[in-house]
């Protein structure tokens, strides 16, 4: 008995909710969809999302994702979120294109959709939150080196491959802002091909060629670890500072040994926090996603959207002896 009746009740509830007559005390439900569950980086983002929810009040975070990093798994998750009529979906996508039909359906049914970390094609979301931007990264890597060289000095760049698009853009952006750091001279750029052994040899070679070298900037997570090891092995800890972009879990040893004073990468907690703030502001109609729009995201300031409705959250986050222990277990 009652199946038909329940069906009708369900439809009636659906109609009432779709009608927009939402009661005041209903929480705003924001789904944080990640690439896969059980990854430290995303667990940290969840922590940030909960922080934002607490700050906003009356927000319920649904932290979910597939078991492995597949687009099909994420689509199943998104379908069940559409069925639950959540207010917003913030997704770090396993596939730029494959999620678009499912997310379009979500938007058709009045759900706010944003992507963060790993983006979705523009037609499948309202905005995309990048953790940072190329100009910010280019500036950050030279700043990290310069901060420890008040009297200027010689620095060298250890990059990935000559054709690595990301690294080339970041180095180009770094060169644009060199004028802001007087006394700092880039004496060489070498390529470790993102291989640990080759990066190690190139770093060793740099120290032999330039005996007065003060810092090695490695904007690659493979190169930075190899360079730090090369500095330790050459007995040059304290003379040559290794910095750039790396992962806290891999760099904890280098910070401890002193081969690296600091390095940078995005902060997943801030990322989850910002994504939640943005989703909330769009879902409650307090902001609208359009090119040029400025959307507030709590303690992280505002996000300015470009022509592709993408925006950069902030400078890469700096990790050093003061916070490495907190983050090395996260990612």
């Amino acid at each position, binding site marked *: 008995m009652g199946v038909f009746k329940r069906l009708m009740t*369900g439809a009636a509830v659906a109609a009432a909710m779709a009608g927009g007559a939402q009661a005041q005390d209903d929480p705003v439900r924001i789904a944080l969809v990640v690439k896969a569950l059980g990854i430290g980086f995303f667990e940290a983002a969840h922590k940030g999302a909960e922080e934002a929810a607490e700050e906003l009040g009356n927000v319920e975070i649904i932290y979910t994702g597939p078991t492995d990093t597949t687009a099909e798994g994420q689509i199943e998750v998104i379908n069940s979120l559409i069925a639950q009529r959540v207010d917003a979906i913030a997704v770090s996508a396993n596939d730029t294109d494959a999620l678009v039909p499912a997310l379009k359906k979500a938007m058709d049914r009045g759900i706010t959709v944003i992507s963060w970390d790993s983006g979705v094609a523009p037609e499948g979301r309202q905005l995309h939150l990048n953790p940072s931007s190329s100009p910010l990264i280019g500036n950050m890597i030279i700043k990290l080196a310069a901060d420890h060289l008040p009297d200027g000095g010689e620095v060298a760049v250890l990059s990935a491959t000559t054709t690595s698009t990301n690294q080339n853009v970041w180095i180009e952006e770094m060169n644009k802002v060199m004028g802001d750091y007087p006394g700092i001279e880039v004496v060489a750029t070498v390529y470790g091909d993102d291989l640990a052994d080759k990066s190690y040899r190139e770093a060793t070679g740099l120290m032999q060629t330039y005996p007065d070298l003060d810092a090695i900037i490695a904007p690659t997570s493979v190169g930075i670890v190899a360079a730090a090891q090369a500095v330790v092995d050459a007995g040059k800890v304290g003379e040559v500072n290794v910095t750039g972009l790396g992962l806290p879990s891999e760099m904890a040893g280098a910070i401890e040994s002193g081969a690296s004073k600091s390095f940078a990468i995005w902060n997943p907690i801030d990322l989850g926090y910002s994504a939640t703030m943005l989703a909330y502001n769009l879902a409650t109609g307090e902001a609208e996603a359009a090119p040029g729009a400025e959307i507030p995201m709590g303690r992280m300031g505002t996000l300015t959207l470009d022509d592709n409705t993408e925006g950069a959250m902030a400078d890469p986050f700096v990790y050093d002896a003061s916070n490495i222990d907190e983050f090395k277990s996260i990612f």
Partner: protein
Amino acid sequence: MSTQSVPRPDEARRVPDRLRSPLGRLLKSWEVLLLLVAVAIFVANSFASPYFLDAWNLSDATFNFTEKAMIAFAMALLIISGEIDLSVAAIIALASTAMGAAAQAGIGPAGLVAIGLVCGLACGAFNGALVTGLGLPSIVVTIGTMSLFRGISYIVLGDQAYRGYPPGFAWFGQGYVWWVISVEFVLFAVFAVLFAILLHKTNFGRAVYAIGNNPVGALFSGIRVARVKFILFLLTGLMSGVAAICLTSRLGSTRPSIAFGWELEVVTMVVLGGVNILGGSGSIPGVVIATFVMGLVTFGLGLLNVPGIVMSIFIGLLLIGVIALPRLWAMARRE
């Protein structure tokens, strides 16, 4: 093959005067049991979540299993005949890649469908030729072709994706025939009927059971065992091609990781449907109910935001439970 038509030990001691009726009763009881499980899950879901009993939501939920189920029908016949095909998900990847390349060259929806089906058939023929022609064990052959077919997709695509399928192509995976009845669901229903007729109402279907029970006996009874098996591999390839068309159309893009890991879900559906993994018995209605059971469980748990890992545990327990229950019941009755 040591498998005989005595799936349960307690029935082995009774020599039936007519073989079909107790076997029929056994199959029926399995389906009834599954149906009860399905109804229980349906009722539990509708109480657990206020969003479950909604026509559109239930329609969305069918997309979670229709594509896999279409392959499961062909796989059921293959497993009943004593063989298996673990390359089905890889065939989807290869067929989808072929369609993507064709779409890039400006071929229209009809041409893409043809390419998907032909690619599926070709992969099935390749598997079938290796198994029946060279007499290799199908589990080994299809583990090999699983890597081979997906490997080709990875070589062609690398970390790239094919997108930009013609607009009409989206109909297969995103279209609706009437109200909430999707194109995929109609295909699912049509193939369920076709495969049920093929297995239960034709000489070919009888030959499939005979081969699964005793291939040597079947051969001496005048059944062309190799030919039947080859056709079953072709059918499985073809259905993988159909699934590839639906999935590609639904995603609107192709990556080499498409449908990764589906072969195990398809085999799970078949086994849950009461098909003996050693061959010889099973039915299409059982598989149909099993696909609904799996679809309802994953969707229902999804609505409650149960993490996928817990969901897999639940499916595993369900599989073991449904298989173990009749055995336990039989053992209890014997004592």
